[in-house]
């Protein structure tokens, strides 16, 4: 499913628009950066409550098109700046991790 469609279907605020045409088939929910470095796949959406600069850096390294900050997370200024520079979308939801994952999972897998 296209990132733009996911944004349309779920309650998401876009802080940095990018990669709206990316085709998302899965996501990785983690607040442990080493797990994301080790296990997240390219083209996955990254769901996290971490809001610091390393998040943008790792997303770009791993070819992750978009980061979703849960619990209404506010990215640190340097995270947002870095995400803009590296062309990583930054999205925010007021849902907690479980509910956001659940809704996204259902949305993506109903389509498949």
């Amino acid at each position: 499913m296209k990132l733009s469609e996911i944004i349309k279907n779920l309650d998401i605020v876009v802080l940095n628009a990018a990669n709206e045409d990316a085709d998302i088939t899965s996501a990785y929910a983690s607040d442990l950066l080493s797990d994301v470095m080790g296990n997240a796949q390219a083209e996955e959406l990254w769901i996290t409550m971490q809001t610091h600069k390393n998040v943008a850096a790792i997303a770009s390294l791993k070819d992750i098109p978009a980061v979703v900050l849960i619990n209404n997370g506010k990215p640190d200024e340097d995270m947002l700046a870095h995400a803009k520079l590296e062309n990583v979308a930054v999205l925010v939801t007021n849902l907690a991790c479980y509910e956001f994952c659940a809704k996204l999972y259902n949305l993506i897998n109903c389509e498949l």
Partner: protein
Amino acid sequence: MEFLFEIEGANFSVAGNASSTIKRALKQRDVDPAKIKRIVVALFEAEINVVAHADHGTIRVLIEDHQVQMFVKDFGPGIEDVKEAMREGYSTASNSVREMGFGAGMGLPNIKRNADVFEIESIKGLGTNAHIIIYL
């Protein structure tokens, strides 16, 4: 009843042992489970903060008839701006602390939410003193 614990900075494998001991002691005294939970969550957060942020410290817990008092004192970097540190999401946790599952910036707000009285004083470069009271 009084308890004293020494807390070692950076030693995550035993972090939480003090809070666990207190939980058992409170259960034995038949304290209301909802109160126990508030007490041990506040204490655990304070204990973890010593392990995560300080060099070493002590915890003293006084279980009295009408209240539980916790004194958490540490030697370490201290907190520059306590008000800022109380803000949800504020964290200076190191990468290694984040990999241990901490650094959400929720610890101090959790203590505040659970405590009836929460006082915290800190001197930068010296250490931090917290006093937590929960009424029974």
